[in-house]
């Protein structure tokens, strides 16, 4: 696994045990389905998990496959055709791992901004596919999108802090 350096600081590549690799995305999907909609509807826990694993592994191929798997699983539980979330999270997984390989995204502020950015990228891809290919009549709301992005960023900071405990150095 190549190690990339940024500003003279070593960026480490992490891996995770199999239970964490499988269990955390499943738990995120489960919570996304189970948690009360009234409070948690704006959070996208599978997206946060995708971003975390992609940035920690720093491998674009691994990141895009993680995103694709989580996104397709999310599609299977939703009302829309399978593949919309899959495509969006594949792009996010690839982008997050590529970014993680080049930048240090270990501190909280960077994580907040990265999560906000990837949330917007995710929504952009989702809406493009949903409207362009599936012809769904979905409306984009900038206010809600930015608010949800920030909320996901804040939750992401806490979640990443917890998930950092499961990191294993390669």
């Amino acid at each position, binding site marked *: 696994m190549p190690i990339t350096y940024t500003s003279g600081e070593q960026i480490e590549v992490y891996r995770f045990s199999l239970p964490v690799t499988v269990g955390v995305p499943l738990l995120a999907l489960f919570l996304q389905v189970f948690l009360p909609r009234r409070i948690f509807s704006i959070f996208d826990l599978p997206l946060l998990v995708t971003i975390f694993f992609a940035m920690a592994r720093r491998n674009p191929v691994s990141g895009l496959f993680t995103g694709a798997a989580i996104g397709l699983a999310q599609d299977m539980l939703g009302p829309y055709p399978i593949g919309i979330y899959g495509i969006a999270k594949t792009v996010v997984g*690839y982008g997050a791992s590529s970014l993680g390989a080049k930048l240090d995204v270990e501190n909280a502020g960077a994580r907040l901004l990265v999560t906000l950015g990837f949330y917007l990228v995710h929504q952009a891809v989702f809406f493009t596919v949903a409207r362009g290919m599936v012809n769904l009549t979905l409306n984009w709301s900038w206010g809600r999108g930015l608010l949800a992005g920030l909320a996901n960023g804040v939750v992401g900071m806490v979640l990443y802090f917890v998930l950092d405990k499961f990191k294993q150095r390669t």
Partner: protein
Amino acid sequence: MESVLGRYRNLTILVGVLFLQVLGLAVQVKRSPDAEHTRLIRIWAVDAITPLERVIVRAQNGTNDLWHNYFFLRGVRAENRQLKEQIEQMRLQQVRLSEDAAQAHRLQSLLAFEEQVVMKTIPAQVIGSSGSDLSRSVYIDKGSNQGIAADMPVITVGGIVGKVLRVYPSTSLVLMINDQSSGVGVLLEKSRLQGVLRGTADGELVLERVMSDEQVTPGETVLSSGGDQIFPKGFPVGTVSHVSPGKELFLNIKVRAAADLSRLEEVLVVTERQEREVEASGGKTRAADILAQRLPSVPDKPATIAATPGAALSKPVPDAVAQSAGASAKPQPNGTSKPGTGTGGGTKLAARPATKVSPARLAPASTNNESPVVQSPDLGVSSGANAAESSGSATSASSTSIPTGTPEKPAPLPAKPSTTQSTPPPAATEDNPH
């Protein structure tokens, strides 16, 4: 070539994975949406998630029940007293409403009105959502094993919730009315304006297709119109919360859902409904019955006057409306009868003593604006609508008209019974109120 692929290996894999997903998506979109080609995959995913959800929801409900049934009983006595008072009030209200409903049914039956009746519902518990922050859909713990099918309406006591989108063996996915892809045919209760209710990205409800020159006031109740062929007509959908000018000559109407869509726990799936003609309670109701109930009753009078033997009656004029059927035919000094002069038309009746008429029967009213004809057993043929069997009043003594669009003026058909000319008018006719 290999070096290029090796150099752009990651990008190539990304494009490949995206291409496969786009291909799969295109196949799904191209095929008929009714044919569920991804059903098996979805069943696996749902079956993997929902059992755990069921366990957690049941444990949660058990804890809640324990708390509410055993530990949270303070003030129950006071609440019980309050509820009893409320029940008394509601009983009074129920009496009034049931009378209104019975009347409405009777009138609807006259119009051969067809109503949709919810025949059977299945209660279900909400066990989760779709897992997507952009879709508003929930999973319920009933599926095809319990008789649930796609497109069945889902309601609560408060109002409509949505429709069944996908059905699995033991669970179903319900698309709520505030989803962006949902659309419900609705009408406003007071103004009867019709429109389409859609969800927004924020999970709000917006009533579309109402012209800006219409008057819509906040607080007005929104009901299902039945036009979408999914939701039964007349179910509460919500109330208008905000009205403002919108785009392209349409009003921007926000609606607050009647059912609390963000806190759904138990719902009812309408599994069977029937379109049937309204029938008034107590069998077939005739126009005479309805009118007889609405009119002040006439006290019974003893049948004192015997009918003149051989007295003939004039033929009833088809257009005549029941108006002072028997006694209006006042005997004239010369022995001829005078036609009744009711406002709604009348029937020519020969000079014949007012007779206690036995319960008459309304012949079926014809559709060409003819008045109903009362067939009286002892008088042969007479006219009038106040011959209700149930009223028990003498039909000859009341003046009633059925609003059937009959002409104001009675047809001037003189009665020419030869026998009546020689018969002196009996005194009893003077007692007749008309």
